[in-house]
Structures are given as structure tokens and as C-alpha cells.
């Protein structure tokens, strides 16, 4: 707690400075709303219950996208690591698919999947796929050759070697990929809603923009940031649990 005190104090100082600037500088509330006005808007969104469906929608899209992208990324990473020929065949295409700006695919996905949750989930999954695949591939590739030789000597099969040696050894790298994916998932979900959403935090930002309600936009920033931090911390917790079981010490 003591260690966090300076960063909390900094936050308070920034908020006070911001508030003072808005009140004394005569800045239009349309350009930069004061913190008190933002918090007021946030509170009324919470109190009236208007926020919850949007929050639930974005959180669901994010979790679904992250879940699907992570599982597929892990699976493809394992396949490419286990079958080098497959890796040589598919790697350029996987790379190309990742270099296409996925948000630019949004309009196409709306044609394919219609408005609503699906296009955003697909975009989020596509974004989360890559860090998991890349890190799984790297993690498995870095498994110490003499440990592989040990498993050969002990007569371990391919699946056994994967499950008992390669995946546990690669886990720290895979979990780091998951942490990156969480951050990207939030971007995917919010920006996906910009393009095709009616409900959701991203869609709410567009709605607030259309009525020039910058105070609401700031309030939504806070909610999005809180959502991201919550999920990031959840993944950190999972990581610590998993790595405690599967790592040194």
C-alpha cells in the first residue's frame, strides 16, 4: 500500500490540476469536461442502470473474442511447432493474415455476419490469435534439446513429450502472450463496436459523440480502462497460479 501511495498522490494531483484548469481557465466543457462533471455523468449512468447492458456487451465480446482467439492461437501454435513442414507451408499466409489491418475488415464482417455481436467477436478473436500463436511457437521451439533427448531416451511418445515437457516448459512465454492478447482484446472489442455496434461501450462512445456529450465519452473511457485493468489483473492472477505450478520455485 505504502509503495502505491506516490502513484495515488500523483493521480489526485493530476485530477485537482485538471479541475482547476477547467474552472479557472474558462475552457469549454465541450472540449474538456471537469473531473467532477465526468464523475457526475458516470454516477448517473451507473445509478440509472443505463451503463450495464453496454458494459455487459463489451465484456462478453471481449471474453468471447479472447477465448476463441487464444484457444485457436494456442492450437495453431502447437501444430506449427510440431509439424515444421506445415509451418513452412502456412507461415507466410498466417503472417499475411495478421498484416491485414483487422479493423479494416469490420465493414466486410458486417456484410457477412450482420450487425451485432458477431463481427466484433470475430475481429477480437483475430487480433488475439496472433500473440498466442507466435508465443506458443516460440516457447515450444525454445525447449532445451537435452530435455527432449531425455524424453526420447525415456521412450516418451510425441503427445507425451508435448503435454509433459514442451507445453509446461513453454508456459511462461505462452502466458506472456495471453497478457498481450488481453490488452488487444479490449481494443478489438471497443473499436469493433465503433464500426458495427449498437450496444456496447464503443457504440456508446459513438452515440455520445453524435450528441457532443464529451463528459459521457470521458466517463466511458474510465469504464473501459477499469474493464481492461480488471481483466489484465485476472490474467495476472491466473498466470501466477499456473506458473507457480509449472515453473521454477
Amino acid at each position, binding site marked *: 500500500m505504502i509503495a502505491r501511495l506516490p502513484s495515488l498522490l500523483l493521480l489526485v494531483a493530476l485530477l485537482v490540476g485538471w479541475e482547476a484548469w477547467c474552472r479557472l481557465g474558462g475552457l469549454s466543457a465541450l472540449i474538456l469536461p471537469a473531473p467532477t462533471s465526468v464523475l457526475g455523468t458516470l454516477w448517473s449512468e451507473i445509478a440509472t442502470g443505463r451503463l450495464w447492458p453496454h458494459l455487459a456487451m463489451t465484456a462478453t465480446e471481449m471474453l468471447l473474442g479472447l477465448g476463441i482467439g487464444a484457444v485457436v492461437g494456442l492450437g495453431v501454435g502447437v501444430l506449427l511447432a510440431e509439424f515444421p513442414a506445415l509451418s513452412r507451408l502456412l507461415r507466410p499466409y498466417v503472417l499475411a493474415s495478421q498484416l491485414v489491418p483487422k479493423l479494416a475488415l469490420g465493414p466486410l464482417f458486417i456484410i457477412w455476419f450482420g450487425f451485432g455481436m458477431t463481427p466484433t467477436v470475430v475481429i477480437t478473436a483475430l487480433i488475439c490469435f496472433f500473440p498466442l500463436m507466435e508465443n506458443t511457437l516460440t516457447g515450444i521451439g525454445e525447449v532445451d534439446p537435452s530435455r527432449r*533427448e*531425455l524424453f526420447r*531416451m525415456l521412450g*516418451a511418445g510425441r503427445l507425451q513429450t508435448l503435454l509433459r515437457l514442451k507445453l509446461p*516448459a513453454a508456459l511462461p512465454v505462452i502466458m506472456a502472450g495471453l497478457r498481450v492478447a488481453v490488452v488487444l482484446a479490449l481494443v478489438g472489442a471497443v473499436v469493433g463496436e465503433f464500426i458495427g455496434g449498437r450496444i456496447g461501450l464503443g457504440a456508446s462512445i459513438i452515440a455520445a459523440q453524435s450528441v457532443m456529450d464529451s463528459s459521457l465519452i470521458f466517463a466511458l473511457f474510465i469504464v473501459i480502462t477499469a474493464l481492461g485493468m480488471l481483466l489484465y489483473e485476472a490474467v495476472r492472477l491466473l498466470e501466477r497460479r499456473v506458473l507457480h*505450478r*509449472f515453473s*521454477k520455485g
Partner: protein
Amino acid sequence: MSTEQSKPGFVTIERASYRYEATGPAVVDAIDWTIPRGEVHCLLGRSGCGKTTLLKLAAGLLMPTAGMIRIGGEALAGPSPRAGFVFQAPTLLDWLSALDNVLLPISLKRRPTIADKDAALDLLERVGLADFVMRRPAELSGGQQSRVAVARALVGNPDLLLLDEPFAALDALTRKELQDDLLRLCALNGTTALFVTHDIGEAVYLADTVAMMAAGRVTQVRRIELTRPRHRDMRYAPSFITACRALRDAMDGAATASRRPAA
């Protein structure tokens, strides 16, 4: 130098050669070698002389490009289930306790029984780790990790133990303790062992027979006439020093390539 021919061989290496590339130089060059059951043989040589490759051939981790290797009369066609291997580094799994690391060879085949667990605990006790069985490798010293690796190689009671400079990274005192541990454990079940080292003293202390290797060939074979069980005082006996001296001379001779292969 031909005493080993009088006993039947448990491990027989028959004109085994190995090349990494078909047209490349032979890393192991037509080696004949016999290890009688229950004996400890050491392969001694400088880095890059092919001794580790020969050991991997004996383990079945590599297949000879020519010649054949038999263990207990059976020709080797892959990693031998009758052999335990100790690598240069302990190669423990960081996420398993010392006990689970020792049980790994069994747990890869089936669920370990209470008897397996007792056997593993017994081995860990014999290498002086009774109080450390639940520790993970990161919580063990280098010497303790090497002890776990030796216990792991012995857990299935293999007929043959193959060791690739397993103690090279340890300090001199720990190394000598581990050499004593190893000899005791081998004597317990009459385990045959092939031990690769570049340390002359280690080779003479451990071995019944020392083979010197240079450039893929066995250049010198020396029977070590020290009684068993070996004891640390023997390291100062004149016969020990003479044997070390002779091997040292042979090693220098091989390095200048002025000697004809004596094997």
C-alpha cells in the same frame, strides 16, 4: 589389455561408425568395444574426440552409420529401455519436485505405485537427499540436482547406466562425493556403466577399464588394477598415480598424433 575379452560382453560395440553427413568425416570411426556385465568403463578424451557421440550410439539416441551395437545380445534399434542416461546438465523438469523428477521415467509409462514411490525415496535417501524430496530443482544446489539426475537414471533398475560428464560442472569436493555415491549405487545392483569424462583422475577412480579416445578412435585401453570397493584414500596410492600418469602421457601422445592406435 585384452582381459575384457575373457568375459562375455554385456554391451558389445562392433565396428561402429558415425558420420553426421554421408560424405563427412567419421566422428566415431569403426570402434570395437566390449563391456562385461557389472563393470564400469570410462571413455576418456579431449573435447570433440567423439566420446559423447559414442555414448549416444550406445544409448540408441543415435544410430551408427556402420557397424552394430548390442546390449545383452540384442541389437539396438532405438533408445534402449534397459539403459539409464545421465546428461551433462541435470536436465530436471523445473516444475516437478525432486521426487517427481526421479519418478519421471515411470510416470511416463504408467501411474507410479506406492512401491515405485518407495523405490524413488530410497534412491533419494541413498544420494543424501532424504530431506529434500519435495523441493523443486531451483531450490537445490548444483550438486543436489546432479544427485537427483543420477537417482532418476537408476529408478527403473536399468542394466546399463550411461553417463556423459555428469559431474563436470561441480566443484572438486562435491564431484568426489558423487563419484563415491555412483560407485555404491552401481555396486548395489551390479549395474554396468559407461562413463564419459575428460578428467583423468575421475576415470581412474571410477573405472575397471579406461578407454582413451582421440579423433573418433580408441587409442589406448588400460585396465585399472585397484580393488573394489574404491575408497578415497586410493587416490593417493602409487598405483593410482601411475595409472593417471600413463593415461596423461597417452593423451599427450594422441594429441600430437605420434602414436599408432593401440586398441
